[in-house]
């Protein structure tokens, strides 16, 4: 630096310095700075020969610090700026290595840099380093090195700029940037982690999602994914959106351009089911058109559910209150009614509007009102819960003035400032009545229990007898004292007792009635059998609450039963004997019947054959020897023949009689009127020469055998015809009449009649009351009638008087 730059150095330097300064304060174009500085140095060298003082002045006044160093790195020149910058005087610096103005930690590195620079002297980029002031303080600086070679001597100029200010600004800017980034990420965090669901999407269907946050995902049917829903469309994520009416709102907002806020909007998604949201959908306008939607959501599901459950709870409470079977009544500490339920209204006959706000005393009879007021004041002074009506008769007064017994329990409720008493009221009219009825029924029961001849008692559920009737003590001769506890066992037969106890335990275990005959000792020491019945008495739940027992003395009954058994046995034996006899008789009868049949058969064959011979050969005699026989002989032969024929008739009659006995009997309804008419017609024909009046009652019927009844009527009517023979005006009547309450058929005639004295054998076989010559006949007819009537379960009898006619009565079965 021995050479000084020539004029016009001032302008050149000023220009150069200015440019350097400008460069130094800018952030860019540092690369060209070194070149320019080198140019400045060149200029400086050229003007070194110029006015030294002027240079100095300029040099010193140069704003950047300028330090010239020689090839060894020692400072040769320092300007004022440098002095000021570092706090050294220039004499303190000149001759020192440049490193003196650097912090020690940079000095080694700098020395190498400097050496390298001198070894390869060319433009060096400006470097930012730290400067060290004399007082040790450090500050940022920028150093640009320019090399000068003059006359083989190389030196360098270092231009030093204090960049503390610039650094501070840059730092401030960085700060701002960092701050911005922080804020941005905070905002992003806020956006993402906002408890409010936020999203933006395209205003055109299908509503492409532009952005959204994590919570918004809660609204969709897709689980959260870090890549989110971006670029997707609403229907992809919320297939239920249309169903839930979302798009309708979208369309509305798109149409009107006005945002829409909805509260507790229900959304039923596939993933979470029904949820509720407070909604805000705002349009994002661009050039007056809705381009996008900003959607803000807050989930209120829990609140809605809680509100609903609260409403339900409250509804339930209200319903409970209203449906309570007890009257509920709240009274404030002023004694006024504040709440009344339906039961209370019903109980007292007031509408709630008439009660709320009224003093409670309105529900009491006047005579109790004053006392109750005192009582109420005391209660609010010393509130506690209690059941009223225990031992105290409380009386309520209805609107119509009638009174009723009630029971009330009280609870004290304190809620913030308000104090109230809650009363539960029960109308105990019915209970009173029941108690009364119970007392009465109990008294009736005791009276009845003491009146009956049975012994009776009641026991508790455990079988311990607690009460006996009077009759028990009378029979057993015991006293209530002796019967205490298990005292009743003393009147049992010790032999029977184990079984009695065993079965009694069994009944108590099963709850089944106990039924047993057991001996009980009387006051006289004699055991008598007692039919013992014990019934369980059950409470409303069907649980055995106790037992009711009776003991009935059955010793008399036993005796009677014994006697009955004996007599039954005797009767049975008699019956058996009788049956045996009947069997024997039946056998005999059957044998007799068979004999009779055989007899009848042989009669019909064997007895009739000879008769035919007698008759035939008598006739042969009469015919073949007619001339030899005189008139008397012929007459005798006629007699032989007529007697023979009569015998034939008798045999036939007998056969008929026996057949009636043997034949089966039919049971039909027989029209007796018709039968009698038919018989009468035949008789009239047979006796054509006679005048006979038949009077036959109409509509006579009987249950029986038509053939046999016809035979009977033929015999009776035939007899009547026969015995009216002598009368010119024969009158024969057939009818029905009452005989001592018995309905009997009768055949009445006005014939010759007969003497009742001879009537007894009338119905026997071959019994006749008249001479054959007078009235011919076999004497079998009435026997046949009687047999037929008997076979019909009836009877036959006659009434007659000689010359006055006769009446024959007969009954058929039980008529």
């Amino acid at each position: 630096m021995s050479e000084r730059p020539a004029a016009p150095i001032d302008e050149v330097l000023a220009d150069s310095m200015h440019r350097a300064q400008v460069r130094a304060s800018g952030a860019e174009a540092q690369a060209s700075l070194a070149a320019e500085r080198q140019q400045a140095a060149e200029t400086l060298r050229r003007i070194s020969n110029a006015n030294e003082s002027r240079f100095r002045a300029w040099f010193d006044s140069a704003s950047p610090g300028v330090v010239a160093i020689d090839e060894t790195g020692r400072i040769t020149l320092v300007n004022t700026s440098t002095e000021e910058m570092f706090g050294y005087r220039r004499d303190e610096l000149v001759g020192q290595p440049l490193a003196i103005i650097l912090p020690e930690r940079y000095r080694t590195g700098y020395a190498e840099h400097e050496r390298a620079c001198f070894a390869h002297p060319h433009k060096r980029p400006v470097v930012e380093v730290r400067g060290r002031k004399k007082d040790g303080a450090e500050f940022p600086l920028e150093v640009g090195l320019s090399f000068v070679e003059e006359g083989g001597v190389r030196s360098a100029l270092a231009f030093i700029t204090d960049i503390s200010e610039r650094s501070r600004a840059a730092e401030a800017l960085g700060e701002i940037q960092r701050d911005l980034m922080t804020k941005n990420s905070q905002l992003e965090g806020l956006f993402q982690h906002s408890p409010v669901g936020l999203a933006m999407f395209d205003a055109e269907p299908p509503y492409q999602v532009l952005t959204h946050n994590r919570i918004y995902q809660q609204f969709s049917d897709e689980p959260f994914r870090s890549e989110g829903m971006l670029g997707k469309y609403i229907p992809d994520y919320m297939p239920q959106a249309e169903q839930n009416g979302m798009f309708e709102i979208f369309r509305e907002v798109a149409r009107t351009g006005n945002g829409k806020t909805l509260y507790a909007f229900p959304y039923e998604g596939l993933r979470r089911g029904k949820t509720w949201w407070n909604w805000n959908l705002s349009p994002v306008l661009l050039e007056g058109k809705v381009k996008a939607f900003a959607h803000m959501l807050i989930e209120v599901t829990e609140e809605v559910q809680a509100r609903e459950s609260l409403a339900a709870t409250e509804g339930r409470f209200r319903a409970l209150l209203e449906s309570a079977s007890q009257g509920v009544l709240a009274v404030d500490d002023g004694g006024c009614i504040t709440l009344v339920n339906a039961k209370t209204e019903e109980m007292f006959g007031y509408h709630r509007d008439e009660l709320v706000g009224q003093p409670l005393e309105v529900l009491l009879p006047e005579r109790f009102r004053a006392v109750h007021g005192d009582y109420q004041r005391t209660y609010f002074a010393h509130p506690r819960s209690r059941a009223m009506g225990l031992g105290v008769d409380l009386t309520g007064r209805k609107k119509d003035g009638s009174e009723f017994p009630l029971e009330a329990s009280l609870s004290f409720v304190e809620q913030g400032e308000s104090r109230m008493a809650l009363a539960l009221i029960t109308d105990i009219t019915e209970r009173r009545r029941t108690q009364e009825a119970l007392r009465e029924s109990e008294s009736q029961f005791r009276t009845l229990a003491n009146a009956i001849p049975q012994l009776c008692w009641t026991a508790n559920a455990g079988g311990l007898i607690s009460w006996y009737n009077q009759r028990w003590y009378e029979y057993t001769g015991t006293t209530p004292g002796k019967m205490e506890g298990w005292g009743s066992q003393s009147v049992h037969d010790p032999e029977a007792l184990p079984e009695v106890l065993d079965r009694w335990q069994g009944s108590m275990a099963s709850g089944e009635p106990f039924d047993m005959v057991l001996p009980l000792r009387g006051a006289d020491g004699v055991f008598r059998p007692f039919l013992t019945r014990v019934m369980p008495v059950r409470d409303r739940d069907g649980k055995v609450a106790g037992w009711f027992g009776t003991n009935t003395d059955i010793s008399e009954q036993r005796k009677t039963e014994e006697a009955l058994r004996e007599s039954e046995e005797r009767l049975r034996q008699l019956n058996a004997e009788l049956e045996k006899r009947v069997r024997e008789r039946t056998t005999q009868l059957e044998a007799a019947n068979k004999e009779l049949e055989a007899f009848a058969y042989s009669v019909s064959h064997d007895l009739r054959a000879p008769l035919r011979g007698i008759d035939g050969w008598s006739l042969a005699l009469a015919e073949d020897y007619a001339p030899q026989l005189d008139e008397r002989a012929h007459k005798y032969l006629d007699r032989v023949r007529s007697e023979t024929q009569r015998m034939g008739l008798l045999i036939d009659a007998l056969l008929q009689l026996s057949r009636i006995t043997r034949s089966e009997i039919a049971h039909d309804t027989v029209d007796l009127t018709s039968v009698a008419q038919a018989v009468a017609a035949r008789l009239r024909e047979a006796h054509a020469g006679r005048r006979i009046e038949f009077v036959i009652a109409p509509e006579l019927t009987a249950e029986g055998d038509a053939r046999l009844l016809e035979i009977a009527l033929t015999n009776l009517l035939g007899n009547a015809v026969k015995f009216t023979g002598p009368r010119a005006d024969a009158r024969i009547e057939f009818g029905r009449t009452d005989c001592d309450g018995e309905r009997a058929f009768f055949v009445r005639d006005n014939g010759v009649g007969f003497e009742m004295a001879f009537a007894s054998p009338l119905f026997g076989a071959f019994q006749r009351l008249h001479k054959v010559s007078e009235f011919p006949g076999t004497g079998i007819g009435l026997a046949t009638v009687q047999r037929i009537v008997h076979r019909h379960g009836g009877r036959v009898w006659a009434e007659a008087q000689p010359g006055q006619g006769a009446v024959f009565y007969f009954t058929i079965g039980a008529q």
Partner: protein
Amino acid sequence: MTTNARIILLVEDNPSDVGLTERALSKSQIANRLIVTEDGQEALDYLWGAGSHAGRDTTDLPALVLLDLNLPKVTGLEVLRRIREDARTRRLPVVILTSSKEEQDIAAGYDLGVNSYIRKPVDFKQFAAALEQLGLYWLSMNEAPPKVKDVRDT
């Protein structure tokens, strides 16, 4: 063959009745020859050409059989049953002529295929009248059944 030539077979064990029957028939101008067999077995022997009647021309059947019921050896009803069982005599007119009018006999007779059932009255005049009508009916009014071929050859 004339009606007169035909035989009446009387199955009757009581000689008195046989006499009376012969007398009644003759009084009724019935000229048919009367063959009398005194028990049931003999009657069957006669009809089938067996026993004491062996060799008899069995195709020459009687015009009428008068059958009593109460017979020794084989009863009348049994004779009737066998007559009806045998193809040769199945169509033979048989009239039961008996004292019995027991229902059981009448029923049994008809059940076994008897052609008529006559009860012999005690009064001979009535008996004669009955036989006269019987003869008139069966021997002249009634068309006799066709002869039965000897079924033993078929």
